[in-house]
């Protein structure tokens, strides 16, 4: 019954999202993962993984993740196996589905160690937006600000100086789905990818939570009515 009712709606929804394939998440900037009922935007997160793999992974580890976890982004096992096979681990062997994400060699950027990104979104207030703002926050220092050696100006980073240079630029990666790889698009996509990396169960949690809340709200009302009736009759 429910399925019969919702199937046409679902079909319309799929068609609509298909028509809006070149979906614009930048004007205005929004992330599908945000909000109380947010879900991971898998297309954006897949693009974000391409950005991570192409740009971030040379310095930042993602120790909490295994390559098999990428199936959670909607990639097939064969696609993930292909991705893993292209990665040479430290021992020279190609990665497999059950390998952890490759850890880059020890790096020091002017004395700073690039942080692990597994939980970066959970580790910063407003994490998703922070990642985007940070990655697009680089620029020339304002007048009167002199930078420490080996540091770069970033308007969002506490203190305004960071050891990481601006690494995103237009067309730093080529997107498989044909989206235009502007700097802002890359930053937004990698923010959505890292949101998923920090909380891979976000979509499931919201779905399960909503169903449980609806069920128990209904059950609570029924139980209260039953209790009132019994207490009126017996009490």
């Amino acid at each position, binding site marked *: 019954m429910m399925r019969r009712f919702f199937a046409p709606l679902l079909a319309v929804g799929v068609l609509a999202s298909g028509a809006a394939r070149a979906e614009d998440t930048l004007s205005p900037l929004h992330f599908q993962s945000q909000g109380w009922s947010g879900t991971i935007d898998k297309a954006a997160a897949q693009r974000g993984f391409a950005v991570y793999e192409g740009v971030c992974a040379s310095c930042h580890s993602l120790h*909490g993740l295994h390559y098999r976890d990428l199936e959670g982004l909607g990639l097939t096992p064969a696609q993930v196996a292909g991705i893993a096979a292209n990665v040479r681990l430290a021992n020279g062997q190609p990665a497999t589905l059950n390998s952890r994400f490759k850890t880059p060699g020890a790096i020091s950027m002017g004395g700073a160690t690039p942080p692990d990104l597994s939980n970066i979104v959970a*580790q910063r207030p407003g994490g998703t937006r922070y990642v985007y703002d940070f990655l697009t926050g680089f620029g020339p220092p304002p007048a009167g600000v002199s930078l420490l050696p080996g540091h770069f100006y970033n308007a969002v980073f506490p203190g305004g100086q960071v050891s990481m240079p601006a690494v995103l630029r237009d067309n730093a990666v080529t997107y498989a789905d044909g989206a235009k790889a502007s700097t802002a698009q890359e930053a937004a996509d990698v923010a959505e990818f890292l949101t998923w990396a920090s909380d891979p169960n976000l979509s499931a949690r919201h779905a399960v*939570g909503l169903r449980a*809340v609806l069920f*128990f709200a209904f059950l*609570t009302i029924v139980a209260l009515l039953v209790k009132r009736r019994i*207490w009126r009759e017996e009490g």
Partner: protein
Amino acid sequence: MQMEAKQAGLTCLCAGWTRKDRAPGAPWAATLPVLLAALVLVLLASGAVLAVYYDPRHAFWSVQGIMRGVQGGWLMLGYHRVGAGLVFALLGLHLFRTLLVRGYRGAGAMSWMLWVTLLAVLLLTGWLGFVLQGGAGGHWALLNATRAAVMMSGFPGTVAMWFFGGPAGGDTLARLLVLHAVLALGAAGLICMASRAAKRAKPVPNGQVVAFWPVYASQYFAALAGLALVFSLLLGFAPHWGQGMQSVFAPTPLLVAVPVSYPWYLWPLARLAGLLPGVGGQVLAVMVLFVLLYALPWLDRSNGAPPRRLYKVLIWLLGLDILVLGVAGPMLAALCSAWVFFHFLVLTPLVTAMEAA
């Protein structure tokens, strides 16, 4: 025929447990012990699943592995985290209500002391749970605690050494995991004992009993459904509320957690402990608090009649004070902590003696 006999047997078996008659018209707050017991069962069950996958030697990454790699692991972590928070919320409510209706006097003294013991056991269990997550905050909390334990001498030092086994090392968390589980089982036992003691203290008067089924069963069912509703709201939409960000950082020597940010249910106690300087002072402040809570039935000089308005206002003030204490800055926290001691040591004997006069 056999079926019927079986059913009859089952009914007989359950009858002793469910058919107990009770006094009519219990308030909703009287369901709190049952809700607490339900939550502790959820915690024991989810904790048993978590313990299967938990590795005390790689605590942080094993918890991450449960969240990311174990089927439904995130749900188990959520049950455990949300359940722990709600246990403290409900026990706090129960203690507050007992204070408000003066349920700790006379025959109620035994169950009051058992509930206070439960609070102490749960706070310790909660602290251990926070440490066992292996995040940067828990790592530093453990380092500080074991360092202080090693420095202690005499009997407190012996107890601390027995508890931690020495300075924090690779195997300390394995040891604390066992203590965490044992204390949790102890908490379940304490809830049973406290409920029994409360029932004994208040026998049902003859002639005005109501059957448990269906009168009380319907009330418990509604209360449990409401609890499940709050539980799923938190689980689905705010599972990390009040947990502090330090627990999502892996412990590295480069990351120093100063001050340690505890989960919300430890906030009031952590600030109250800070009232006196030094580790000895912290331990002393907490111990004095619990001694006062245990001694409350005797600090109260009233004749056991229901409290009058002034005393009720003071209890409400105390509740508010503890809530503020949880989020206060250092100055206000000192004031709020001092008020807690002032309330039990000065105001309670004074006001209750005035009531008795």
